């Protein structure tokens, strides 16, 4: 974002600020908040039977005739040039169809970086792909082999000989800090924000904590590998991908390959885990290009190592959090600043200070992020980018302040949780973080906590409990479209390009559509994962449910109008206007007199129509600019630390959430737990190891990068306030990312309570807890 974009966003906010709330989307609460039957029900996933039987076809599982297989060569050097390239042995190897390098790769432009222009800007990098001899980071794709079988392609890759001239590379975070950049904005927020003079207030405060917290790089590690199957059919391009951005991918590929949007079709009905990592990267571009070159379908599946090499993860960070408090424990200053890696060719600013702007009041604030430039695979968005690691720093600092002052950590938070957005002053649309803490503390048994660290012990184990707050902004993306088709038999099909990667998208939207259209669950089909369907934006920022829901609302309104018109004068609902009816019991009924009802079936039959189809886009998400809208959480953890080995075992974890209406308790609980478990990994085991000497990732495998196993995961309790947000579709806010938020600090704070050791650099591995 540039200064100009800052100014534009700023003026939109100002204008919207003057507009009465009633004029905006969500101006009057969604009527379904009060009137729901399927929504809020504990429904099992609709795709469950397909997934447990192995019948669900993921991207690499579509049978394709005449398929060829690709494998990639990754640069082992970090910066430099390819000097000599010998592909003779690979060309001659059995089964090899083509070897592609920068010499014979078709000339292509570069992708527009995420967020830079429109919704089709989805590049994680704007580096050229196989266009020249230059190497920009370790692991960069430098060649590809296409062969008859995967085994042949993999073997031929080992026969390609490349000599490089290495150039000096920036690989050390500590050194590169000296030349860090200060961006004008972080996503759509101003970067450097000051309220009052925070440093001065801090220095005058009765109580001060001022520390540096460090978090390592992480990788998404979706279990499904990145894989793409590309095929050209005449001038048309068909791509089977595993992507969180179905429609934007089609648009981006069309632009890059000089095609019309309708010539490109991207299919991705199931995504085997995304977490921010399943976007547009180099491998899709290579597959599409080489499929045209060989005139055959090409399947390109990254090796697990390849995923680490060319799919960026979460950036490392070094964060300073300073809190000043007065004698009563009210915050006088909150400073959150720091460094994270973002190469100039990347797109993700890792917004770790944004969460800190939204939770606590203070007399003064200062927020500032700096970007460190390294020669590195571009980092990207990973579950709760920013908030996941930002809350580790801030919520650890709050715990440190509570300990320093001898105050209960929940009391300390209660005294400082803001009633309006602390920085902008905007009202919260709905905000019950305090209730989440109260409810969670009671269920968890917080009153059993012993404040003095190291007090509780069972055998060799020291026991501690800790808590933390979390916050993640609501988002509804513009540009969500859906098509609703009412069929003659009274059933309906909802279609949009949205992606299903385990969030329960189809399940929840069918529940929604059932209530919205007045139909039973069984009468609704949801089609998704196909860019030929009405476009939906990427799944990111925990926004998909609200975005698609907003579009279904718009389409249902349009459908109501169309069906009323079609119903004609003979209908029991004749003469009623759209605002006077609702969709219920398989038809249209008068709100004032529900006995006036006409079924969809009879309306369509009388008009001799097979079906009625409408397509509509969701309204502009202006509610986001008028109100402060955040999902929030209170996280509680109980754990044991071995006095012998320093091993940490988490025994209990509880998340108490305030996220508006919970649409499906079963799938929502899984989303919360899933985020919290990734938070356990962040807290205790996960770290991508970059060797600073070479700039190379050394633990590029699931054996050496430790995500939690079954034995690492305790039974996780989740609960929620279930208070609808009057400003959002269905009263719901996002739940996909709030789960991980706050977990790192809750664990670190529990470790402190258990041992008296304050670990400020993640992960909290056992060596950090051993006595000196």
């Amino acid at each position, binding site marked *: 974002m540039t200064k100009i974009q800052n100014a534009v966003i700023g003026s939109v906010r100002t204008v919207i600020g003057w507009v009465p709330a009633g004029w905006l989307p969500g101006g009057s609460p969604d009527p379904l908040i009060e009137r729901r039957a399927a929504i809020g029900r504990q429904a099992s996933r609709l795709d469950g039977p397909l997934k447990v039987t192995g019948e669900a076809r993921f991207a690499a599982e579509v049978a394709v005739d005449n398929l060829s297989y690709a494998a990639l060569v990754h640069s082992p050097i970090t910066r430099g040039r390819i000097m000599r390239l010998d592909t003779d042995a690979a060309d001659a190897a059995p089964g090899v169809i083509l070897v592609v390098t920068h010499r014979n790769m078709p000339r292509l432009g570069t992708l527009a970086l995420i967020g830079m222009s429109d919704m089709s800007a989805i590049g994680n990098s704007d580096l050229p792909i196989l266009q020249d001899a230059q190497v920009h980071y370790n692991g960069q794709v430098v060649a590809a082999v296409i062969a008859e079988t995967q085994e042949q392609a993999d073997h031929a890759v080992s026969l390609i000989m490349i000599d490089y001239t290495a150039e000096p590379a920036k690989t050390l975070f500590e050194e590169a800090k000296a030349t860090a950049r200060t961006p004008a904005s972080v996503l759509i927020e101003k970067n450097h924000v000051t309220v009052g003079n925070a440093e001065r207030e801090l220095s005058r405060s009765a109580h001060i904590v001022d520390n540096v917290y460090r978090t390592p790089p992480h990788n998404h590690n979706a279990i499904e590998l990145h894989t793409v199957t590309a095929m050209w059919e005449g001038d048309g391009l068909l791509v089977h991908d595993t992507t969180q951005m179905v429609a934007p991918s089609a648009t981006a590929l069309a632009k890059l390959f000089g095609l019309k949007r309708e010539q490109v079709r991207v299919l991705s009905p199931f995504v085997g885990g995304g977490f921010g990592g399943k976007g547009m990267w180099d491998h899709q571009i290579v597959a599409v290009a080489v499929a045209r070159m060989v005139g055959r379908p090409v399947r390109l599946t990254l090796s697990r190592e390849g995923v680490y090499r060319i799919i960026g993860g979460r950036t490392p960070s070094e964060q300073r959090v300073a809190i000043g408090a007065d004698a009563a424990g009210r915050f006088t200053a909150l400073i959150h600043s720091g460094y994270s890696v973002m190469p100039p060719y990347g797109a993700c600013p890792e917004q770790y200070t944004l969460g800190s702007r939204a939770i606590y009041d203070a007399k003064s604030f200062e927020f500032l992020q700096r970007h460190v430039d390294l020669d590195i695979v571009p980092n990207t968005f990973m579950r709760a980018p920013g908030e996941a690691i930002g809350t580790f720093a801030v919520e650890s600092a709050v715990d440190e302040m509570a300990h320093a002052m001898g105050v209960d950590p929940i009391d300390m938070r209660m005294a400082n949780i803001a009633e309006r957005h602390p920085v902008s002053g905007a009202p919260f649309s709905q905000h019950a973080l305090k209730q989440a803490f109260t409810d969670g503390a009671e269920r968890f048994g917080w009153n059993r906590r012993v404040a003095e660290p190291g007090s509780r012990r069972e055998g060799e184990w020291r026991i501690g409990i800790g808590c933390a707050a979390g916050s993640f902004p609501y988002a509804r993306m513009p540009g969500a479209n859906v098509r609703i088709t009412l069929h003659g038999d009274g059933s309906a099909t909802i279609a949009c390009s949205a992606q299903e*990667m385990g969030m329960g998208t189809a399940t929840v939207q069918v529940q929604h559509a059932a209530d919205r259209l007045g139909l039973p669950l069984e009468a609704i089909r949801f089609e998704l994962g196909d860019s030929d369907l009405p476009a939906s934006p990427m799944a990111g920022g925990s926004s998909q449910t609200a975005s698609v829901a907003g579009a279904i609302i718009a389409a249902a309104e349009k459908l109501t109008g169309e069906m009323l018109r079609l119903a004609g004068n003979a209908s029991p609902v004749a003469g009623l206007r759209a605002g006077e009816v609702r969709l219920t019991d398989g038809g249209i009924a008068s709100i004032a007199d529900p006995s006036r009802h006409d079924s969809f079936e009879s309306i369509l039959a009388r008009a001799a129509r097979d079906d009625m189809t409408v397509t509509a886009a969701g309204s502009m998400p202006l509610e986001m600019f008028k109100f402060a809208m955040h999902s929030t959480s209170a996280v509680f953890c109980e754990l044991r630390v071995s006095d012998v080995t320093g091993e940490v075992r988490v025994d209990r974890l509880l998340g108490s959430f305030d996220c508006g209406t919970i649409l499906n308790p079963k799938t929502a609980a899984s989303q919360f737990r899933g985020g919290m478990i*990734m938070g356990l990994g962040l807290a205790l085991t996960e770290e991508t190891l970059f060797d600073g000497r070479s700039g190379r990732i050394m633990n590029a495998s699931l054996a050496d990068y430790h995500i939690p196993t*079954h034995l690492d995961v305790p039974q996780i309790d989740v609960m929620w306030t279930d208070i609808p947000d009057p400003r959002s579709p269905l009263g719901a806010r996002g739940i996909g990312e709030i789960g991980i938020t706050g977990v790192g600090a809750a664990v670190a704070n529990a470790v402190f309570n258990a041992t008296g050791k304050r670990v400020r650099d993640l992960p909290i591995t056992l060596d950090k807890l051993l006595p000196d």
Partner: protein
Amino acid sequence: MTIKVNGQDFPPPDDARVSLLDLLREQLHLTGTKVGCNQGACGACTVLLDSRRVLSCLTLAVQADGRSVTTIEGLGTAEALHPLQAAFIEHDGFQCGYCTPGQICAATAMLEEVAAGMPSYLTVDLAADRITLSREEVQERMSGNLCRCGAHNGIIDAILDVAGEHRP
């Protein structure tokens, strides 16, 4: 010789490098068996080889010659679910569904191992021939199957449910 897959005979591949996993997925189009790492680190490719759970990614297909393979497709169908498959749905033991077939295959074999009295690292009395299937025992025995969506609780609940044990 042949490889028996879900009761049907198939010839072993000509190329000895082909893993059992790739034979299943690419040649037999039995894509229920998943590929997560291709290096024995995630468990997504778990199948039953002569009724024992193994990793098909590190098994060369030729090694399965003359032996019997059961994949997720051989356990149940959407119309006739295996009890574990039904329990995974009921307990929401998955999100994206990608590690799921491996988890279910592993759980199937795991319950057999427990019935046969095989101990785990957490079994307190190794000399005892009966296993008390605690939640932790199931967690340890299933730890070779990674899940990134975080469906661990539902997976263990589903297995305990089928094992006839109930959560405390």
